[in-house]
């Protein structure tokens, strides 16, 4: 994942994208090619700093000769491939996948999704009114479920988890994209504090035995929050402001600087609202951090504000 390109010439692969011949470097994904060609494909579980999880299935495209649609985020371009992004089949798939997600999940803080729902004509309401929140999702046994009556649509709505001072887990917004687990695990942080637990619709992000975060292996690097595409994970400072209605991105400025705590020299982006730091992120294209920080860089800014 280093950004240092040693410049080995890569062969070009030619294929057909929506009727036009396109050439991309070998190993490019269909999504890479679409992005280069200016074709917009929605994605949710795809992460610029992570390996594809292939889980959300909003990026599906049609590849000639394939029985099923294929995920553009992970499928590599092959010479002679014929790809279509805008057929009835891909449109139906995109619409229904978004409907399914929206019917089960609170997507109010997922960027862009509102537009996609409108564009595709999604009607999540057609599955029925959302079932009330439940507080037993952390302990459901795989392979069994309550028999539904069909008059409400099951959802992942549940109480917000606030069990530490630094970040909040609102899994009613979680689309199970696997990004936080991958960031916490062997792709970046190697802390392995969280996992996907349970199975099927009851699958969920969890610590061991759903223990509170302070009892887990979490080191509060916030790297899971950094990659979460839905706002299911958010910094407490942001969560509290959203709760009391004072979160306002319009009024925020972003300043990228260098962390002063140690010699690694991580890039920090300070999000400032009303002269207060409200969030710290790191540029995903930074060759030092790839978006990752430690607890000090991520959360150690209170002293700056002691006035």
């Amino acid at each position, binding site marked *: 994942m280093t950004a240092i390109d040693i410049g080995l010439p890569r062969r070009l692969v030619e294929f057909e994208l929506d009727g036009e011949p396109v050439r991309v470097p070998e190993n490019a994904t269909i999504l890479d090619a679409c992005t280069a060609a200016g074709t917009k494909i929605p994605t949710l579980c795809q992460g610029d700093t992570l390996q*594809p999880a*292939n*889980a*959300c*299935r*909003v990026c*599906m495209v049609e590849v000639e000769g394939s029985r*099923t*649609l294929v*995920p553009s985020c*992970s499928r590599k371009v092959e010479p002679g491939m014929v790809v279509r992004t805008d057929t009835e*089949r891909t449109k*139906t*798939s995109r619409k*229904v*996948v978004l409907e*399914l*997600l929206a*019917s*089960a999940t609170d997507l109010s803080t997922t960027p862009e999704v509102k537009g996609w729902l409108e564009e595709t004509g999604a009607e999540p309401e*057609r*599955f*029925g*009114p959302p079932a009330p929140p439940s507080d037993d999702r952390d*302990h459901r*046994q*795989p*392979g*069994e*479920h309550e*028999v*539904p*009556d*069909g*008059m*409400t*649509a*099951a959802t992942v709505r549940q109480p917000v988890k606030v069990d530490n001072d630094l970040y909040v887990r609102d899994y009613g917004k979680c*689309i*199970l994209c696997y990004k936080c687990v991958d960031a916490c*695990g062997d792709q970046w942080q190697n*802390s*392995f*504090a969280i*996992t*996907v*637990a*349970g*199975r*099927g*619709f009851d*699958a969920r992000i*969890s*610590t*061991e*035995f759903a*223990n509170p975060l302070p*009892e*887990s*292996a979490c080191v509060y690097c916030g790297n899971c929050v950094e990659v979460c595409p839905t706002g299911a994970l958010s910094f407490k400072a942001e969560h509290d402001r959203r709760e009391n209605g004072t979160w306002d991105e319009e009024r925020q400025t972003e300043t990228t600087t260098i962390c002063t705590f140690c010699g690694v020299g991580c890039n920090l982006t300070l999000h400032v609202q009303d002269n207060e730091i409200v969030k710290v992120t790191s540029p995903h294209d930074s060759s030092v951090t790839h978006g990752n920080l430690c607890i000090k860089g991520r959360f150690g800014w209170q002293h700056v504000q002691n006035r």
Partner: protein
Amino acid sequence: MDLQFLSSTPTDDERAAVDAAVAGQAPSRDLLLPALHAVNDRVGWISQGALNHICRTLEVPPADAYGVASFYSLFSLVERPKRVVHACVDLACKVNGAERLTDALTDAFGPASGKTGDVTWLRSPCLGVCERAPAALVFQAGEPATEQLLAPVASEALVEVATLGPSTVDVPTLVPQQGDGGLRLLKRIGVVDPTSLDDYRATGGYSGLRNALLLGPVGVIREVSDSKLMGRGGAAFPTGRKWDATARQPVRPHYLVCNADESEPGTFKDRVLIEGDPFALVEAMTITAFATGCAKGYLYLRGEYPKALHLLENAIAKARERGFLGENIMGHQGFSFDIEIRRGAGAYICGEETAIFNSIEGFRGEPRSKPPFPVEQGLFGKPTVVNNVETLVNIPLILTEGCEAYARIGTAGSSGSKLFCLSGNVRRPGVYEVPFGATLGELLELAGGVPEGRELRAILLGGAAGGFVRPDELDLKLTMEDARAAGTTLGSGVVLVLDDTADLGGFLLRIAAFFRDESCGQCVPCRIGTVRQEEALHRVVGGKKLSTGGDDLLVLREVGQVMRDSSICGLGQTAWNAIESAIDRLGALEKPLERGKRA
């Protein structure tokens, strides 16, 4: 790795169980599933202390191990009674009165999943004994854990065993066609002693391996390719092609995985093969390994098959003792191979050919994205052959009689004979062997047809992932190509018969519930689609409407189409097949379904 563990400590029992399970082996993540089984078997559930001890021993992060343990329905992560009754509520048992059993269990022990008292009971997906429906499995944790399969069972008998505890009763494994000289795959079932290697050899056992060793790996692959054998696990992929692709991979080692996870509702042929002729599977795996260059084979056996487990353990041990496994097999210098059994723990999805790798490796049994395919990167990232039990059991036959003789059986497109699992409303349920090309009607006749005075209503072909056919389609020739042409599938060989007493609506609802329960949850179309499918089906079957008044058949169709198009694996891709065929082929669901006439 600098892992953080929990502060909880194991009890002496828990520690002993884990230590015994990993004794003599280098600690590694792939021992996670066996270690979880060991604790669950001895104590009945997996506590924080026990999980922590497993994690310390195997150097697995506790969260990861929890993610794995909570994936499997046979494990409990909360304390529960040591005695657990798994009452099958799946298709064949449902048709044969499973509800009476669950009612009796509720009366005796309270609602399902109770956490107190001496006994708890669970609704179980298909237990793989549909020919003796209704079935239940009584499990008792301890050292050793004991299990008793009761099938068929009456309510009073089940409650009695549940109250007193399981005992070992050996019910012989039989097939209805026993004694029929034309049997090939089933010829030893019920006839030879499944514990005796001598009996196996006296009935032609190990002549296939002997021939294979003479032919050499390339020759064996040629025989299997020319036999036109196709996989019997459901996907009908040419076996020779799979073997050839694996054998050619320069990367070593290669692995063999025998898929004995048999969990497709209505399927029980692999269990019958293993229980009646376990040495045949051991020989078949050995030939496969020889041909494809595998040094090690994993036999992934469904967790709910205790009798098959014991017989396989015995067969492998005896084969090893006598030089049919291990080093220089049958005196062939340089050919070494051994088999390790891995028990599943209650997850249909682990029969998917890449989920099975994750399960064996100690990860959640989630299917992997393909490509890469197993022949390139399979188990532990190495080239791997995955074959179904029935597929493999054909191999010694091909090697003894030769590919030409083999290919003469069946049809041009589907060679050999095929096992079918007949269950439901049929007079003589069981596993039947017929050459490909027999008709559905002939098969049904072999099994005696529907009970006296009843009328055939529909047949579910291929399992929950298959489809329905109508009573006027009995002249369907049972071949891969005819099934495809007729827009249906033979799948894993399920032939589940429904007569005019069957509650078709309830049956469809069970199929929908099954897919919802068994979805791994990884991808959106399947994870949420199977839920919406079940909900919409409840409305359609129950004659209900949402106030928004949408068209629920359209909901079913669109969700079904997208599950088929955009799910990662075959589970989601087929989760709508049976319901779709009930609508399109049987014309069901057009109006609210009444329960069966006499049910």
